[in-house]
């Protein structure tokens, strides 16, 4: 349906406006601000153009480097864990059994509740005097209880547990969608060829669910870089900066300390990191989009 008089602009203008105002312009402005020294709480200092000084500071800032490493560890651990758990959940949800609707709803609950609520919930579970976590580990021996959120070694792990709990179901849903596209006939043909359940999984399910796995992996990677709510509520970046992930560090600098210039530098760095990952993702996904449109 090609109509040269389609009211393209009328239909698309509102969304353009929002996109330009609240996405494109801010990104450009962040880049611009990263070249300035600007402190919110000291407005009389004005804006001082400092060119690459902020970037130099960023490169030599041990806290920033630590932030990057922390974020990368976080992504490297939570993403595979969530995709694996998601795969397990999706495989179960793909079978038809009584109560499947209920299970699907239950699995959605962690996704549906606000992240800050789940953060408070896990904070409670990890409590050092009466948290369930400690009870499960040590029983009545309260003197041996850990304070996971206050121990440098354990804090990051606790945040990761909370994140895995919250978002595995999202990965599960994406993978489930991929599983459901596999035609049932393929499994029937394999039955007739004499394949066992394991062989069917290995030769049919796994190869055909790979695109969905890839999608889940990439979505979760990008989201893992954005973790903030959990850190804010559970550890505030501590103890000793062991949970000071990139987004939190940027927040602290920009809003808690008011150093918008330097904060913008961090923001730009994080943005570039995400952009690179997004481009890889779009490349892979785009290739498949084009391939899909070619096949009948």
């Amino acid at each position, binding site marked *: 349906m090609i109509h040269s008089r*389609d009211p393209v602009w009328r239909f698309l203008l509102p*969304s353009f406006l929002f996109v330009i105002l*609240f996405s494109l312009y801010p990104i450009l402005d962040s880049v611009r601000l990263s070249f300035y020294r600007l402190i919110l709480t000291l407005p009389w200092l004005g804006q001082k153009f400092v060119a690459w000084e902020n970037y130099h500071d960023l490169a030599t800032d041990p806290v920033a480097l630590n932030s990057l490493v922390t974020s990368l560890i976080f992504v490297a651990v939570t993403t595979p864990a969530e995709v694996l758990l998601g795969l397990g959940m999706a495989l179960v949800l793909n079978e038809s059994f009584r109560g499947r609707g209920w299970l699907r709803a*239950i699995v959605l609950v962690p996704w549906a509740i606000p992240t*800050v*609520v789940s953060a408070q919930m896990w904070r409670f*579970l990890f409590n050092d005097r009466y948290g369930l976590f400690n009870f499960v580990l040590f029983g009545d021996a309260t003197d041996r209880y850990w304070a996971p959120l206050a121990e440098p070694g354990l804090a990051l792990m606790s945040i990761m547990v909370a994140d895995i709990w919250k978002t595995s179901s999202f990965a599960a849903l994406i993978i489930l969608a991929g599983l459901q596209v596999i035609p049932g006939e393929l499994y029937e043909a394999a039955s007739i060829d004499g394949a066992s359940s394991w062989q069917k999984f290995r030769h049919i399910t796994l190869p055909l669910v790979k695109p*969905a796995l890839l999608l889940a992996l990439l979505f979760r990677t990008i989201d893992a870089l954005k973790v903030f709510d959990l850190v804010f*509520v559970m550890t505030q970046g501590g103890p000793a900066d062991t949970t000071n992930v990139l987004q939190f560090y940027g927040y602290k600098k920009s*809003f808690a300390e008011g150093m918008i210039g330097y904060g913008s530098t961090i923001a730009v760095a994080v943005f570039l990191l995400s952009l690179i990952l997004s481009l890889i993702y779009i490349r892979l996904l785009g290739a498949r989009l084009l391939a899909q449109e070619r096949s009948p």
Partner: protein
Amino acid sequence: MKKIIFMAGVSVIGGFSLLPFLWFVTTSWKTATEISAIPPVIWPSFHWEHYHGALAQHGLLRYIANSAIVAGATTVVSIVIASLAAYALARFKLRWGRYYLLLLLALSMFPQIAIAGPVWRLLSWLGWLNSYHGLVAAYISLSLPFAIWVLATFFKELPRDIEEAALIDGCSRWQTLRLVVLPLAAPGLFTAAILVFIHAWNEFFFALIILTYPAVQTLPVGIALFPGEYTMPWGEIAAASTIATLPLVVLTLIFQRRIVQGLSAGAVKG
């Protein structure tokens, strides 16, 4: 035998997802002593004081009202704008249509910090900080990429013939959308609306930086900043959390099928 392993798997998954949350909910009804008891008390004594405390002393109702207004407004406006854009992208043959969609996808991946500062300054300059419309404006731009993707996928699946018949009958594009497509696409719109609503209700980062006066703060901010320096009032936090999440859990349980469809719509087709 296989069946037993399977049912065990089902129970583990169900338990994993639900039990931590249930534990927190039951905490809201326990007395302070029950909460800090070791070994933990499983069955609460249905003690409603924490709820009174949360509502009366911590102004929970105000937070709920704020969240409702913000999430509601965001949903309505987002869906309208997204429908228009999605329909155009799905039906008008635009060579750059696919690129715009991909751009939207890329935008949705921006970490909030990348745009937070300038957005804050923009809203400050407009005088929209600590206002509903300020936050709603920010939220709309956050939801648009996702809403447009879901709706575009949905519109593409509708049979073209009916729309073509309407055009032949003399309808304009706008009329076709309003009178023919939207009624057909109602389920998809509904799904997208639920997803936008849940996302807006749960959003924290922008609410935190844009709303600094307690009078306008939304629920997530209220729960995150729950006062308590030395001893956390877990009972009250649990009560507040339960109230905060109750509507969402109910929504999710009722509409789980649509939500699953909507979330995976982009995944498979896109």
